[in-house]
C-alpha cells in the first residue's frame, strides 16, 4: 500500500507538485499529470480566464486533481491577499500558494510580506503554502501563524540550477515540524530525488518539465525520482564516511580477553 502524505487537510499519495506555467499549450496538462502521478497543480490566478473557454486553464485540469492557485504577480501582502480571495471566490478551493515577489530581476520572495499575507489568510480559513527564501526564523514564524507547509526555494525560479540552498533547506527540515516542500530551482530529476532523500516532504517542479524537449517524458522521470528519493529517505541511507572502511579491518585480529 502506498504511503500517504497528509498536508493542508488532504491526503495525497504523490509527493510531486506540478506547476502549470510555460507550456506551449494547456492541452498538455492532463498528460503531464498522468505521467508524473502528481495530484496537485499550481496555477497563476493572474492567468485564469473563466470567460474564455479555449484558453481557460481550469478546463484542462482533471476534477480529481487538487488545485493550488498561486498569487504570482503580487508585489506585497495586500495584493496577495486580494488574489487569494479572488481565487476562492472563483471556486478554486481553499488552498493557496503565496508568492510575494517585489524583485523582478531574480524573482526572490519577500519573506516579510509573505508572513503578513499568510497570517491574514490562515485566519480566513485558507490552507496557506508560502513560497519563501529558506530562513529558519521566517519558517518558524510561518509555522506560528498557521501555514500548512513551507516552500523554500532550491534556487531562483526557472533557473534549473538545483538545490543551491541545500544547507538552509536541510536546517528547515530538521527544525520545522511543518512539511517542507522544495519549490523553485529544481532542474533535474536527480535533484528532486536528492531533496526527497534529505527528508523534504515534497517538491514542486514547473520549468524543468515545461521547458524539456519532451515534457511528458520529463514529468514521468520526475514522478519516479520523487518516489525513489522518498523511498530512500524512509529506508534510512547508511552513514557516510570520510575515509574508506575496509572489509578486512587492520584491527580485526583483536579479541575480547
Amino acid at each position: 500500500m502506498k504511503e500517504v502524505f497528509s498536508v493542508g487537510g488532504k491526503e495525497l499519495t504523490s509527493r510531486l507538485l506540478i506547476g502549470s506555467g510555460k507550456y506551449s499549450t494547456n492541452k498538455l496538462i492532463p498528460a503531464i499529470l498522468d505521467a508524473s502521478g502528481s495530484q496537485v497543480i499550481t496555477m497563476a490566478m493572474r492567468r485564469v480566464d473563466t470567460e474564455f473557454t479555449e484558453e481557460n486553464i481550469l478546463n484542462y485540469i482533471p476534477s480529481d486533481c487538487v488545485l493550488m492557485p498561486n498569487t504570482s504577480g503580487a508585489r506585497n501582502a495586500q495584493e496577495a491577499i486580494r488574489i487569494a480571495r479572488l481565487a476562492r471566490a472563483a471556486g478554486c478551493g481553499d488552498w493557496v500558494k503565496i508568492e510575494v515577489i517585489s524583485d523582478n530581476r531574480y524573482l526572490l520572495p519577500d519573506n516579510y510580506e509573505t508572513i503578513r499575507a499568510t497570517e491574514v489568510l490562515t485566519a480566513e480559513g485558507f490552507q496557506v503554502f508560502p513560497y519563501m527564501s529558506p530562513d529558519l526564523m521566517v519558517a518558524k514564524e510561518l509555522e506560528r501563524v498557521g501555514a500548512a507547509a513551507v516552500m523554500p526555494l532550491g534556487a531562483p525560479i526557472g533557473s534549473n540550477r538545483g538545490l543551491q540552498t541545500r544547507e538552509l533547506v536541510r536546517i528547515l527540515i530538521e527544525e520545522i515540524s511543518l512539511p517542507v516542500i522544495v519549490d523553485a530551482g529544481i532542474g533535474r530529476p536527480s535533484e528532486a530525488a536528492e531533496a526527497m532523500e534529505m527528508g523534504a516532504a515534497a517538491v514542486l517542479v514547473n520549468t524543468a518539465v515545461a521547458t524539456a524537449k519532451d515534457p511528458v517524458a520529463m514529468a514521468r522521470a520526475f514522478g519516479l525520482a520523487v518516489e525513489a528519493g522518498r523511498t530512500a529517505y524512509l529506508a534510512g541511507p547508511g552513514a557516510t564516511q570520510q575515509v574508506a572502511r575496509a572489509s578486512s579491518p587492520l584491527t580485526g585480529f583483536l579479541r575480547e580477553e
Partner: protein
Amino acid sequence: MGFYQECKEYQKSDFNSFFNKLTDEDIRRIIYKSRLSPWDYLALLSPVAERHLEEMAQRAQQLTLQHFGRSILLFTPLYLANYCVNQCVYCGFGAKNLINRKKLTLDEVAAEAKAIAATGLKHILILTGESRVHSSVQYIRDCVEVLKEYFTSVSIEIYPLEEEEYADLIATGVDGLTMYQEVYDEAEYDKIHLAGPKKNYRFRLEAPERACRAGIRTVNIGALLGFYDWRSEAFLTGVHANYLQSQYPAVEVSISPPRMRPHVGGYMPREKITDKNLVQYILAYRLFMPRGGITLSTRESAELRDHLLPLGVTKMSAGSSTNVGGHAGGEPSTSQFDISDERDVPAMVKMLYNQGYQPVFKDWQMLG
C-alpha cells in the same frame, strides 16, 4: 543620479572607439556570462557581434524559454483620440496635418471595448494624441472606468504626466505604461520635435520613472528606430530599462524595438534599420536583461514577426488598428501610421500554436 544624468554620461563615450577594440573572443566570452554589464551589452550591439548572431540567438532562445516558457502575451491598442498639439515630423497625428480628428465618446469606447473583448483579449493599451484639452486626464480616467468592465489589464500610451496624475490613473485601474522616448539623442530629439510640449526631452525621458514612483505595475519603453544611429539608441534604451529595473525592482520592465513606418506626414528617417540590425538588437537585449519583456508590434511584417518570435519576444499586439474607433466598425479616422501585420486575433492564435507557443490572453487580474 537619475537616468537623465546617467544617459548624458553614457553619451559622452566614444562608441566607435569602443567597438574598434572588440575582438571575436570578447563577444564569445560575453555571450556566456551569467550577468552582463552595460558595456557587455554595448559590445553585443557592435559590428563585431554581427558575426556571432547565431550563437547569440541560441543563447537568447534558451534564456527566453527558461524565464518565460513557450507563451506569448497578446494585447491590442485602442486609439481614443487623435487630437494633438505637437508638431513631430514623423507622426500622422501632428497638429499641422490636415486629417480627420476624432475623439471617442464613452459610448463609443464601450462599443470598441465590446468588439475587442469578443476576440478574447484581456489586455488593452489605450492611446491618445497629446492634447490636454481634448484628452484630459479626467477623460482618460472616465475611459478606464468603462474599459475595466471588459479587460483585466489596461495600459496607457499617452502624453507624459506628473507623478500625482499617474497615481490618480493607477488608482482608477491603469496598471501599465508605454512611453517611447522616440530618440534618446537629445540634439536629434530637438530637431524632429518642432513645436509643442513634447519638445521637453527631459520631462518625457523621466516619465516612466514618475510612473514607477506612483506604483505602476508594468513599464514598456523604446526608441523609434530610424532617427539616429541604431546601436546607440538600442544601447540607451537597454540601459534605461536596466536603470528602471534596478531602481524599481517590483516593476515589470519591457522594451519595444519599433522601426519607422509610413504615415500621413510623409517624413521618412535617414537611418535604414535592416532586419539583421533589428535581430541583433533583440538578441543583445535578451542577453543583457534575461527577464526583461520584449514587445513586438504590428509595425513589422507577419513573416518577420513569425521569425522573430523564438528569439526573445514576450508580448505581441494582434488585431491592431491605429485608427480612432477602428475596432467596432465606426466611421474611420486617419491612422497614426500604417501597420504591416494585419492578422486578426484568431490568425495570430493559430500562428502561435503552429509555432509551438501558447497565446496568453490574460496575465493580470485587475485588483482595483
